[in-house]
């Protein structure tokens, strides 16, 4: 399994707990870094106050859309605008299946759009599929190493 870590951008602590549990229950033990809003996510990826981002980019970003301060779409836009992160796999994982969210998400370059099911059993299944696919099956473009 890919040793990379996962960036989970999610403001709802319940969802964070449930997502972590779902991943764990399927033995996906990769490190999960949680950003509680868009600002935190951007700070993690691009560094805080002119600082630099992480040594190694996450294997996948699980991005919620409705976030305080900077929302998911804006985060996605920034990710795709930056040279270093423009090929970073981003999966939108959100409550809504509003048509315009789906269209906007893909238009901005999301790699996938997954709606969080209410049924926790289904949710666990979705998390498992996501983990398996993005951490195991998917071959991401090699991100340039940080200088």
């Amino acid at each position, binding site marked *: 399994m890919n040793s990379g870590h996962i960036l989970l951008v999610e403001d709802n602590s*319940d*969802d964070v707990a449930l997502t972590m*549990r779902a991943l764990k229950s399927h033995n996906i033990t990769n490190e999960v870094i949680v950003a509680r809003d868009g600002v935190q996510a951007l700070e993690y990826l691009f560094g805080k106050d002119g600082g630099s981002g992480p040594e190694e980019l996450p294997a996948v970003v699980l991005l919620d859309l*409705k976030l305080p301060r900077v929302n998911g779409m804006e985060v996605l836009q920034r990710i795709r605008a930056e040279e270093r992160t423009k090929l970073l796999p981003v999966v939108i994982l959100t409550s809504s299946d*509003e*048509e315009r969210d789906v269209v906007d998400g893909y238009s901005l370059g999301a790699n996938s759009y997954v709606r969080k099911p209410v049924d*926790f*059993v289904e949710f666990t299944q979705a998390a498992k599929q996501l983990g398996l696919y993005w951490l195991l099956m998917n071959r991401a473009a090699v991100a340039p190493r940080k200088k």
Partner: protein
Amino acid sequence: MIPLRDWPIQRKLTAIFLLISGLVLLLTSAAFVTYQVITLRRMTLKDLSTLGRVIATNSTAALAFANEGDAREILAALRAQPHVVAAGLYDATGRLFARYPPDLAADSLPATPPVDGYRFERGHLVGVEPVAQTANARLDSLYLESDVKAVRDAARLTGIIGTVVVAIALLAAYVLGRALQGRIADPILALTETAKAVSTRQDYSVRAPPSGRDELGALTDTFNQMLARIEEQDRALRESKTELEQRVADRTQELAERNEALRRNAAELLAANTELDAFAYSVSHDLRAPLRSIDGFSQVLLEDYGPKLDEAGRDSLQRVRANSQRMATLIDDLLKLARVTRSEMRTEAVDLSAIARDIVGDLQRAAPERPVEFAIAPGLSARGDSRLLRVVLENLLRNSWKYTGNQARPRIEFGSTGGNGERVFMVRDNGAGFDMKYADKLFGVFQRLHTASEFEGTGVGLATVRRIITRHGGRIWAEGAVDQGATFYFTIVTARAGPGGPS
């Protein structure tokens, strides 16, 4: 030259007057002159014959005695009659005996006396009178020749007088005619002027001046009455025109107000729609999250602490999960209903039969063990939004599929009936059906005719269907009976659902 037909009436009348009076005067004058001439000739003839007889009587002695001197003497008495230009006495042998005037050339008189009697010859009056001693003994002949200057003079004079009279009479006729023709022409001219004024100025208030009580007067009166009526009608017309204009103005004003109201309404609707949009969006995101937590942590409890709970505890947690999932379905269905109202319509030709076959295929794949007989009429199509019409058929066919669940030989049909030239589509099944008493409740939101334990459902599907059909300008209704199946009918009037834009 203007043809007679086109002469002005005054000229025509004058011409007629002059023509008639001229003709009458001419005839009268001619008759008078003729009469004068005839009378004069007669008188001249009579005078000459009297003269002839007197001279003949006087000459008897002279001739009887062949006294030439006496004869000449007698003839010389003719000097008193200047109109006698020549005279001659012939003896019984026909020889010229004496002549007058004495110097008259011999060849101016006939060689022998002509036949007795008086007559006009070669512009002269000629007379031959027998000179006899007794009644039976003829001696000689007297020849007299008189000019007709007097007759001619009289005729000329009469002619001149006649001409002068005719001229004066014609002049008088002309003057009188001019004066009197006004009686006829003036009212006609006045009528003409009035008619001209009416036709050029469209002024129906003018009137022809009244004239006498003759036919022209009647004509003028009738014309004036006609004008009065036209004026009245014209006024009525103007009034109704003004009224009409006022009404148009009123209506325009009203329309403008209504437009304004509509515009306000549209703005309000737009605002409401935007609000609804925002509401639906936040429902979609925010209302589901707590449900996910409730369900998720209930599951966590079941997984982690299940063994420590008794059967009742686990059942309670299952119920919590089931209800949170049901709530999620309700939210999803409501969002679908809202979306149906909000979404833009794209009108195109839609193959309903193909969509129905598609849905039926999905249903059969999902539950291949169910022996449902399908009858889908081919070639059914309508103009509308294909996505929304798919939602309609999906709801109706899934309903039929659901409500035939307890049927031994389930049958579902999609077809159409052509009632009153209107295409009516229908979805029919032989399932649980419903009581017609509640038919009006079928299409209400959250209205259900079955308990969740009989048939599950949220009661939003048919409300969604009706919303879509309404947006397509159509109607939907249902017929059924308990355990006898149900038939849903709907129409689609695409003409009213324009392309694009929420209706």
